[in-house]
């Protein structure tokens, strides 16, 4: 690939010191970088405060308030979940992350028994996580849903929401490309509606209007309603991504399936969907990243996810006034999760040979 200015990308010094102008520019950048790096070092380490009881003591040094994070990191990570029981969400989180990363590992999918083993692990893992989070059995005390919070809540909202959305999205995408006009219109209407409105409006709908739309006496925890709103919302985006995959399948595949005498269902299940979905995995991962970040919107309906818990962590008078510390801390967590996923998605894209030209 060539740089667009007509200069080959790789020459002497990898494009850092190749021409005098470039070298000067690089030097300026390097100087800035060093200056900035020293500033960060000074702020976090030299002037950072490790031992302090209040925000004011931290403010005296003017640096990063490590003491705050030492005191509050568990509140930020687990929200209002009872302090003694916090090993449970931590363990559930580990199980969940292990299962998720196993599920996207191409190595496992390549093994003969891999997919079955994976399914088995999920069947075992989901009730285990539920047991850990909810409790009320096997001598583990029950923890009501309204006390869930922090990172486990964020991961749950995103992964359950996206899993539900995935199933709905397959139906929607098939409807969107269907030859039957009524199905196509319905799917199009759904997709356009949900892609046209902001997620916040849907969360308000779920939080405020839900009781109007169900028979009197029905009730559902706000958390589950938000979960539902997430699933419905992201299904539209996933369906649109899958439509791209479905439309990229050559008509020859359909003809071949028909020639073999496969029914429509069989064709979709065995021929079309596996190919189409494989093509759109990178976009699906990107939607998952978006969902992971957008779970933070539940803050506006007063729920304590990672961002909500970070806000709550400074509510106590002694830590009042800090904002950079909690926000940087959770920014780092979001960054780790999202970067890992996007690196995965890019790697996959490269392997599948799409994307970059």
């Amino acid at each position, binding site marked *: 690939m060539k740089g667009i200015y007509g200069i080959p990308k790789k020459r002497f010094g990898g494009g850092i010191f190749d021409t005098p102008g470039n070298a000067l520019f690089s030097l300026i950048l390097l100087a800035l970088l060093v200056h900035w790096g020293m500033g960060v070092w000074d702020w976090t380490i030299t002037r950072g405060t490790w031992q302090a009881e209040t925000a004011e003591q931290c403010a005296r040094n003017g640096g990063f308030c490590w003491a705050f994070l030492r005191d509050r990191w568990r509140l930020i990570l687990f929200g209002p979940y009872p302090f003694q029981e916090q090993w449970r969400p931590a363990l559930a989180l580990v199980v969940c992350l292990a299962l998720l990363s196993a599920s996207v590992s191409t190595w496992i999918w390549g093994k003969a028994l891999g997919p079955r083993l994976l399914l088995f692990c999920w069947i075992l893992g989901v009730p285990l996580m539920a047991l850990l989070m909810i409790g009320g059995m096997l001598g583990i005390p029950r923890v009501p849903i309204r006390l869930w919070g922090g990172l486990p809540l964020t991961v749950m909202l995103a992964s359950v929401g996206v899993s539900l959305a995935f199933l709905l999205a397959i139906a929607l995408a098939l409807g969107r490309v269907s030859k039957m006009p009524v199905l196509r219109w319905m799917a199009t209407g759904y997709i356009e509606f949900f892609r046209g409105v902001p997620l916040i409006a849907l969360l308000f709908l779920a939080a405020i209007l839900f*009781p109007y739309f169900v028979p009197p006496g029905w009730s559902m925890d706000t958390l589950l309603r938000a979960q539902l709103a997430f699933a419905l919302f992201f299904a539209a985006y996933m369906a649109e991504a899958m439509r791209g995959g479905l439309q990229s399948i050559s008509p020859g595949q359909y003809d071949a399936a028909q020639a073999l005498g496969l029914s429509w269902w069989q064709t979709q299940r065995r021929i079309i969907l596996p190919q189409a979905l494989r093509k759109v995995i990178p976009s699906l991962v990107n939607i998952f990243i978006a969902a992971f970040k957008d779970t933070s919107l539940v803050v506006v309906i*007063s729920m304590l996810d990672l961002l909500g818990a970070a806000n709550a962590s400074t509510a106590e008078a002694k830590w009042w006034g800090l904002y950079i510390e909690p926000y940087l801390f959770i920014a780092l967590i979001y960054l780790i999760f999202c970067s890992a996923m996007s690196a995965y998605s890019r790697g996959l894209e490269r392997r599948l040979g799409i994307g970059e030209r």
Partner: protein
Amino acid sequence: MSIRSLAIAASAFLGLMVGPTFAQNASIAPQLDTIRERGTFRCGVYENVPGLSALDAQGRRVGLDVDYCHAMAAAILGDPTKVEFRTMSLAQGIPALRSGEVDMVALALTYTIQRDTELNLDFVGPTLYSGHAFMVHRRTGATRLADLNGATICVVAGGITDSLIADYFRARNMTFRPLAVENTTQMYALYEEGRCDVVTSEVPFLGMRRSRLRQPDQHLILDEIFAKSHMGPIVRDDDRRYAHVARWVHYALVNAEEMGITRANIDQLVRESRDPAIRRFLGLEGDIGRNMGLPNDFTQAIIRAVGNYGEIFERHYGQQSVIKLPRGLNALAGQGGLQWSPTWR
């Protein structure tokens, strides 16, 4: 399974789903029955407004509003602990009540004619009388209301204080810039950082909040009260019977104080009192409670759970609390205050 049977199953499902909808919408269950069937009383309260509703050191929810929720649960379900608290912001309260999400909203809302007549809400109490005042940064140099022209004022979104201020300022040809925030914690934080010059609230809350600011002496609470305030829990008025219960639970608390019935002496009074008024109030004679659709001795359950009005006030606002507010307007009518109960007969 063939596709045909799938189709049949789907149509059957459709029929089943549609059928009961008719039946369900035709009948209206009385609110009291709904609550009893559910077994819990759903109550909307603030997440963290000390005095009204906040968590104490042991993680229990305490406050004046919280006690009204407990009193309702005690009256209707016979057990004050059967309350399901739903924490919400001021702006979320009325929508949540109207949608049926909660049975009562105890967010210390001000009693206004519009809320009563247009929003079809019934007010309980007022359970707390007060007045709105302003707190300013001393460095602004403002000492009177008239000095506040052009100030930026923080208010909580969805309340009525901004419209009260708007009226007050307009009548005096003054202007202000409102900044509506989601909750009181945010409001005081923005005020302290200097995003607003002025913050407004009911007098007792202002005093308490000032004591929690970093430099309390840098802030001045103006003496002038610019609007009266009278707050209480609200319920929907679509079920008269239920609305009556909510109103009379409050009066029971006040009446108990008038009669000198407390958490401490109630058992003794139940056993020994010969006073027909007290016996009627405690449900030992007559059938006031039964006629309301409650256990006849519902007042006993209330007083055992939370004490009388005076006890509640002292616990959360008075001498036993950090706020240390004098009874003032919230004393009984006979003692110079405004709290009174209709005759229990």
